[in-house]
């Protein structure tokens, strides 16, 4: 489903917006530049939130997909 290998994964299924973005922000803080985080969400608002979040924080949103009500995002932490 994806060509990206995640260094870390975050399960945000069943969490409402803005909790997925909040948890993701914390998780990105623990990554080193160049590492990739995979996030799974079920709140449909995530599809709008994650691109905006990545833009604001300067992370690369490598992929965003949705299947069977689960959205999957791959974010790469960029060098500061």
């Amino acid at each position, binding site marked *: 489903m994806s060509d990206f290998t995640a260094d870390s994964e975050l399960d945000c299924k069943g969490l409402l917006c803005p*909790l997925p973005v*909040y948890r993701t922000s914390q998780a990105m803080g623990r990554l080193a530049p160049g590492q990739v985080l995979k996030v799974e969400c079920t709140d449909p608002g995530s599809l709008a939130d994650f691109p*905006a979040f990545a833009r*604001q924080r300067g992370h690369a949103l490598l992929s965003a997909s949705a299947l069977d009500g689960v959205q999957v995002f791959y974010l790469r932490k960029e060098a500061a």
Partner: protein
Amino acid sequence: MGATTAAPRRTTAPSGRDRNRLTTDPHRRRYGGVRDLIASLRNPTPLVHLNRVANGHDAYLKLEWMNPFGSVKDRTARYLLEGMRARGELEGRELVEATSGNTGIALAALAALEGIPLTVTIPSGVPEEKLVLLRMLGATVMPTPDELCPIDNPRDGAIALARAIADSPAHRGRYAMPNQYANPDNVRAHYETTGPEIWEQTEGRVSVFVAGYGTCGTITGVGRFLKEQNPAVRVVAVEPQRGHRLPGLKNLEEARAPAILDRSVIDEVVRVDDEPAYAMAMRLFREEGLIVGPSSGAIAHAIAGLDGAATGIVVGISPDSGQKYASYYASLIAEEGEPS
């Protein structure tokens, strides 16, 4: 209030030593627990006359920081928890609340007394002093950047986050949210305590009441009570400007108006800038000896600016003390420079 929760928990027969224990005695200001210190009609917070800064008005500040956890929010927190307990909402649950600090501190203290875990979501800009107090009381603190919810709530990220924690299906109802912005018990706290106290303490002669827009529990509850006693009482709301630095106050254009706000009890809204609010806070320190927080400065500034000589007795709320705002006041002092 609190009669059921204040009952002493004694499971064994009193020992000889316990027989000699002092009983609680409010006249000697001796209490069975800190909860009993929260203000009520029998134990009101003081009204202190403003002798220098009120621009000639016959004005008093009601010193809410004399409450045991340090602010007007002690009343709110007590009523919020008592209401939730009465409705069975606390059974086996944790608490989550969005707060700029003072409600969180009072909730954290009361929750700690009852062994209930508390998570607080906090907007950016809340002073470090408050975060430390919350952590000292055992609360889990989640600082929330304003831009957290870029799509829906650009300035209310902390409220949205608390709501999400309470409502997320993954948490299976583990969290209960007092929601001071929408909970009528917040208004009731002030309708049943702060309002009657002011009426009694002014012997029914209060003619102007001044409080800030925040959760709007104080202005709505006190305003409603005072207007029921005397419809001629003028209720003045103090509102900060957009992007202000006055913790606890809200500009209702940039923040959503709280559900509990009842605009029908408000006669007038006074907009106050940060600079005169801080200048007035400093005057309250130096000319009245009142160690108040910045929001008290905003309220006193609004009092000094009231029009009309015949305003009668003015009562303003002083929500909290200046002890928690060292980091805010430091820049004010720095502007004065070093002594030469």
